[in-house]
């Protein structure tokens, strides 16, 4: 065993303070009576009331949720297809091209992705008349495109870790390739699909830059509204919004943990009955 120095736990604690202090302060000041987000003026929940009466924020949140849900779903389908094709189809003509196009969005600066997609949509509208104007549809397409790259990475790593002889066994027992995919591969990689969907959903919900480029009049996502408010200066209702988001994420993660732990305990219980 290596000798443990106190240096490591200390730097780790400092690191977590660094990660969480701003988040904690967001939550604390969301309950602040004062309009100044950094001076405590007594407990109040008035900013939550203000938040729920703000039609702009509510509308943007609805737009963002729809965009994120649709984009994440399409991204999971396309990303899984891309990953499956790359991992299981051996050689094919467009293989190198697909590999490049799947990994490139991961290192592409958002400003470039946003600008290039906007210019594409403008050019397409000029040539084909579609998409007529920009808005939710164009944001969904843009988010799907960059999110599917992340999904593909997640699914690819799961496919690599999966014992391929399981798929061969199904084939050996008489299942054709499509059947093998739906009966065996899909259920086994389903945790990766869930993880990929959540990742895509979060990325979409979080995106300001790409959406700002490809949106049109009438379709403002939540980050766009937050950004314009934040640029104007402090606004405690944004703290309230942050607190709600943190609460939802915290609940979600807690739930996921609970399900996982319960599953593990059940397995242990079964093994004990031997």
């Amino acid at each position, binding site marked *: 065993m290596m000798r443990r120095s106190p240096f490591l736990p200390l730097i780790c604690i400092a690191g977590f303070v660094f990660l969480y202090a701003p988040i904690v302060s967001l939550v604390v000041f969301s309950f602040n009576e004062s309009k100044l987000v950094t001076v405590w003026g007594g407990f109040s929940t008035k900013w939550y009331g203000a938040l729920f009466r703000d039609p702009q924020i509510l509308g943007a949140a609805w737009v963002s949720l729809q965009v994120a849900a649709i984009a994440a779903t399409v991204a999971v389908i396309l990303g899984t297809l891309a990953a499956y094709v790359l991992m299981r189809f051996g050689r094919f003509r467009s293989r190198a091209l697909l590999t490049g196009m799947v990994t490139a969005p991961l290192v592409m600066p958002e400003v470039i992705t946003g600008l290039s997609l906007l210019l594409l949509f403008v050019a397409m509208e000029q040539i084909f008349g579609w998409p007529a104007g920009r808005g939710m549809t164009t944001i969904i397409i843009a988010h799907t495109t960059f999110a599917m790259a992340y999904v593909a990475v997640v699914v690819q790593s799961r496919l690599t870790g999966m*014992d391929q*002889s*399981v798929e*061969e*066994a*199904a*084939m*050996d*027992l*008489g*299942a*054709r390739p499509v*059947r093998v995919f739906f*009966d*065996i591969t899909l*259920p*086994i990689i389903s945790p990766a699909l869930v993880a990929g969907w959540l990742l895509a959903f979060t990325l979409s919900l979080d995106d300001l830059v790409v959406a700002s480029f490809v949106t049109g009049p009438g379709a403002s996502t939540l980050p766009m509204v937050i950004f314009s408010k934040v640029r104007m200066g402090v606004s405690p209702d944004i703290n309230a919004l942050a607190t709600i988001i943190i609460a939802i994420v915290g609940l979600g993660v807690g739930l996921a943990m609970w399900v996982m732990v319960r599953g593990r305990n059940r*397995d242990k219980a*079964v*093994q004990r009955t031997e």
Partner: protein
Amino acid sequence: MTSQVAATLQKPWLDQAENPFVRIHRVTKKFGDFIAVHDVSIDIYKGELFCLLGGSGCGKSTLLRMLAGFEEPSGGRIEIDGQDMAGFAPYDRPTNMMFQSYALFPHMSVERNVAYGLLREGVSRAEARDRTAEMLKMVQLERFAGRKPHQLSGGQRQRVALARSLVKRPKLLLLDEPLGALDKKLREETQFELIRIQESLGVTFIIVTHDQEEAMTLASRIGVMNDGEIVQVGEPVEIYEYPKSRFVADFVGSVNILEGRVTEDEANFIRLGCPDIGAEIHVGHGFSCTLNQTLWYAIRPEKIRLTRERPEGRHNNAKGVVEEVAYLGNLSIYRVRLDSGRVIRATKANLSRHEDGAITWDDPVWVSWDDTAGVVLSA
């Protein structure tokens, strides 16, 4: 005459008129520049338990995967039950495979794992349930039908894999290192279990293994592979007692190989001059060779006698000193350094618990053997 018929019934490969059930004809498999399997031809007969034996990377698994349909041969032909298998996908072949990793579907219960192949065949749910239950009973896993694979022990998983590959009643069962993941004791029990099941169902088995003891125990015949080629096919006794090459002699069991030149070549004996033992080897049967030809003499350690006194006769003995003794319980292995410097391995069964005056370290001894104990090899 009757015994002759019985013999060919049990050993169909001896019967010229018998048609092989699996015919592997001049099969080659290349991966890029690498030749994994080179020009292999084997005939396997109905009801056999055939073992493909070889070290890792010798091509035995590739050959098995070509039988199952996961790899297409680069050249040659595979016939099963008279039908050319070229172009048949794994799901269209009358074979089933038991995978080295077992490849159980982790998200399905034991019962669903076993029933999977039947349902793909279009068997009705009721019939699939009955046949699955019957199969699970045979491998003594009825109690575990509802379990998921990760809730089973290694031995139980192995039996699920076996049940799953047998439930479709394949004409040919392919087993890839089926006992590789089990510990020694379980492996020995399971070997006999496999033989029992194979005999009761009458299915033809082809087993891939790197474990020569396993091959000896299980097989009706063994095919020894090396570097993608079949080097010898034969019954276990044949492979052990009459290896055709130094490779086979050395790979299967332990052996002393002595190099010598032919000094006498008669109809009923030959003699080899062997500088390694400082004497001549007398071989008690004829061998087609020429004078002065270099040959090899392979002799198993258990066929060598160790004595303190000089044995009678001028041939097949040499003097040396015991350099090492390894006690293995049932037997002891001796390493004897001969006066020529050559080391010979000999084993001795430990017949009694304590032996006074037993040969031990640094004792001067004579090694000797009968003139029919070893094999002459020309390759």
